[in-house]
């Protein structure tokens, strides 16, 4: 299988994502925002950064790049799309994921290591983790406060689309453990068909013991497992009630 990492103008962690995949022995290619072709990759990573400077709204301008037309189609066909931080913001702005990411509760950029709990493991992105595993992952964002209307939130919970929540070291989703004010401590979500995933923490900065620890590696391993099992991601466990 092959990964594709998109570079928008203003993408910053694109090289880091490819470096992480490298470190994990995963082959990847760079995808350019002006290029509509996804070059036959099996999973598209939308990396962190400040695409188009995040001017107007984080992720708002990137969604109109030519490459995003292909990503939207790819996702509709069940292709795996993995949005990290700014990538998550782009996915929300382009409607591939519900809700929106607004300024952190404290209004300032936060770079820190936080704890996150894996809420669901029957997805292509989290299958390598054990249920309720608590991960130490870095966050670094100014607009990571996840918001959505009550109905949408309920839908996310009912369909078990919340994949990652901010928790304390003991795994409790407390207010203090919530770094940015996200509703229900949401750190990462998937779409109803579970082939599009967005999260604010940076797993690509947590795959090497030397730099940031290894707790993030599981997300990439999960995708590898899912795809090497050969099942088209589409049919990979459709949640009950859909």
């Amino acid at each position, binding site marked *: 299988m092959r990964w594709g990492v998109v570079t928008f*103008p*203003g993408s*910053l*962690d694109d*090289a*880091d994502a490819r*470096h*992480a995949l490298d470190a994990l022995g995963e082959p990847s290619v760079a995808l350019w925002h002006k290029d509509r072709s996804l070059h036959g990759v099996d999973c598209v990573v939308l990396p*962190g*950064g*400040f695409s*188009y*400077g*995040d*001017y107007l709204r984080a992720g708002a301008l990137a969604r109109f790049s030519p490459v995003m037309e292909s990503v939207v189609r790819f996702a509709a066909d069940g292709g795996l799309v993995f949005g990290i931080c700014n990538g998550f913001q782009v996915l929300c702005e382009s409607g591939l994921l519900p809700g929106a990411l607004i300024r952190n509760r404290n209004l*300032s*950029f*936060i*770079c*820190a*290591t936080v704890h996150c709990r894996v809420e669901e493991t029957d997805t292509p992105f989290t299958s390598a983790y054990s249920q309720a595993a608590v991960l130490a992952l*870095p966050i*670094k964002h*100014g607009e990571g406060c996840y918001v959505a209307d009550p109905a949408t939130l309920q839908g996310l919970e009912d369909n078990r689309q919340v994949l990652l929540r901010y928790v304390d070291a003991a795994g409790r989703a407390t207010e203090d453990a919530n770094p940015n004010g996200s509703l229900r401590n949401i750190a990462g979500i998937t779409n109803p068909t579970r082939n599009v995933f967005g999260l604010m923490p*940076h797993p*690509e*900065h947590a795959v*090497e013991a*030397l*730099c*940031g620890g290894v707790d993030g590696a599981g997300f990439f391993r999960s995708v590898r497992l899912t795809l090497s099992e050969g099942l088209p991601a589409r049919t990979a466990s459709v949640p009950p009630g859909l």
Partner: protein
Amino acid sequence: MTTSLPPVTEAQAAEHGLTPDEFRRFCDAIGRVPNLVELGVCSVMWSEHCSYKSSRAVLRGLPTSGPRVLQGPGENAGAIAIGDGLAVVFKIESHNHPSYIEPYQGAATGVGGILRDVFTMNARPIANLNSLRFGSFDHPRTRYLVGGVVSGIGGYGNCVGVPTVGGEIYFDKGYNGNILVNAFTLGVARADRIFRAKAAGVGNPVIYVGSKTGRDGIHGASLLASAEFDDTTEEKRPTVQVGDPFTEKLLIEACLELMEQDSVVAIQDMGAAGLTSSSVEMAARGGLGIAIDLDQVPKREAKITPYEILLSESQERMLIVARAGCEQQVMDIFTKWDLDAAVIGRLTDDGRMRVSAGGQVVVDLPLEPLAHGAPVYERPFAPPANLEELQRLDLGQVQLPGDYGQALLRLLATPNIASKRWVFRQYDSLVGSNTVVGPGSDAAVLRIKGTPRAVALSVDCNSRYCELDPYVGAMTAVVESARNVVCGGAEPLGVTDCLNFGNPEKPEVMWQFREAVRGLRDACNALGVPVVSGNVSFYNETDGRSIPPTPTVAMVGLLADVAHHTTQWFKSEGDVVVLLGRTREELGGSEYLASLHDMVRGTPPWIDLSVEMQVQQVCLQAIREGIVRSAHDCAEGGLAVALAEACIAGPHEPLGAEVELEADIRPDAWLFGESQSRIVLSVRKKHVNRLRELARGADVPCTVLGEVRGRRLRIGSLIDVSTTDLRAAWANALAQRMEE
């Protein structure tokens, strides 16, 4: 040949900051009276900021060469070889005055400027540091300035994708009316692919790339940085430069991509004095001439005048001399990155700067006087009248604390010692995935991908020491930054310095400056570290009051093996706590005297440079032998604070320590005195003897202080505080001061 514009008057020359002598000197050099545009060009080239006319003579004393030095001072940044065919390229620069006027944009554009100085040499920036000085918290503007500057540094650095991995921040009423914002960038380049700003090849095209030119910061850095503040500052205010980190990111990628080819002859950023200084300096370095057509310059506003275009300090712009015939290659790359690029001129052979606009010649000047014709001043100097008084300290008048535990807690909560997390958590310290040790330890450590190596970085200056004795204070800045880097596991490689001082036309300021440079020189010579780049910022004063002399030193160190990286905090119970170096009865200039006794006096701790060297070498040797679990230098707050930080500064639960106190001196001096050349180490029991051997070999005092144990810090019978209380005092103090 001359221009059709009318000559200027002496009054206009004065308004441009030229003294009558300087004006006469310029007229003689060019053989006539300049027109207004030419005067503008001269005034920025001859400004203190660009010409170093007050500092040049003094700076000649600094050691700038060494076997590893690939590029010393004089280019956009310095470069040092680190092996594997790679080099580190780094520089520090001040953006003090703009940051006082508009803290967010001032600090942001400071970061943008120093980044350009580094990537213009074909180095990919991998780390930023910043050194900040603010007034005391009881000054009404301090919170606003701190908040604006810190978010400005973050706003730019985070968006441009270069991690901010360290720095320093101090608060002192001496900066109430004049803050300091010094920004540092380090990049990595291929040693054989370093680009310089020396034009070559008559007829080669001069290409403008990056943002369009607007009226930003006309007479900004250049004049502002050369003019004291007073109540008329408001009127003098230029259009503030606004940074666009997004465009800078594109500019980095486009320029680095361009420099992979060989279409570039020379390249330089348009920094202070924008198009003028970049074109003059590049052409002059190459001993050529340059002809520029302002009609070709990409402009943001239609009505902008030639004078304004030449002096504009619009950000995110670069000037490139390309090989004739490569124009299209260059254009294509910048088009790919959605950036403006335009051929605006050519190199000529007549040694002149010729600028035309609307078919009319507006500047026709010989380059030599512009680039090198500014007077070099040997300004008069004399020690401050109150120096002796300041240096007098009668410890008999200094009461011993009633409760040493409380004293420690109070020290830990002072803004100068408290955790700086409130600051650095606003900075992305991870992007680039090289950060092995981020902010929060003595030195930041970044790996060099594709090699076993890493670099360690620290920036330091204790301006209180410098006020009491600029010579010792500057030496301390060098040795402390070196010690920090050594504590990180690295061998000091080289230095860049940012010399922030008051008005050089005042003898006492000039004396402070000379003494500080002498201190830098002696310390760098002793440690064998060259100064490869730097920056001088004069006229840091308000209503006639100078800032404390602040010669900021950024040290770059090399780890041959990244596995040697070391942090300041204790690792596990049972480890033995050892002190390298000797503690003397030195309280002069200490944070303890300042914060707990409201006294800034005495002489700063003395430094024996040979002892300092030995201490650092023993520490580094021990780290390389793999026996050191933590290393932390004793700085502000002395031994007690260093021990406390080792207990609580780590990312994990705090660890306590039990420490013997064998004070043959005043206990407050033993606990809180700031004697130099001291490092607190923790090692496994089984390695204590090896450490002793190493120390004995270099006859460095090596004292076993005690052991890492429990959840309290116990120091003899004087201090017994829980690590919870220590951390509570230290961790949130700065955030609380900001929210008050």
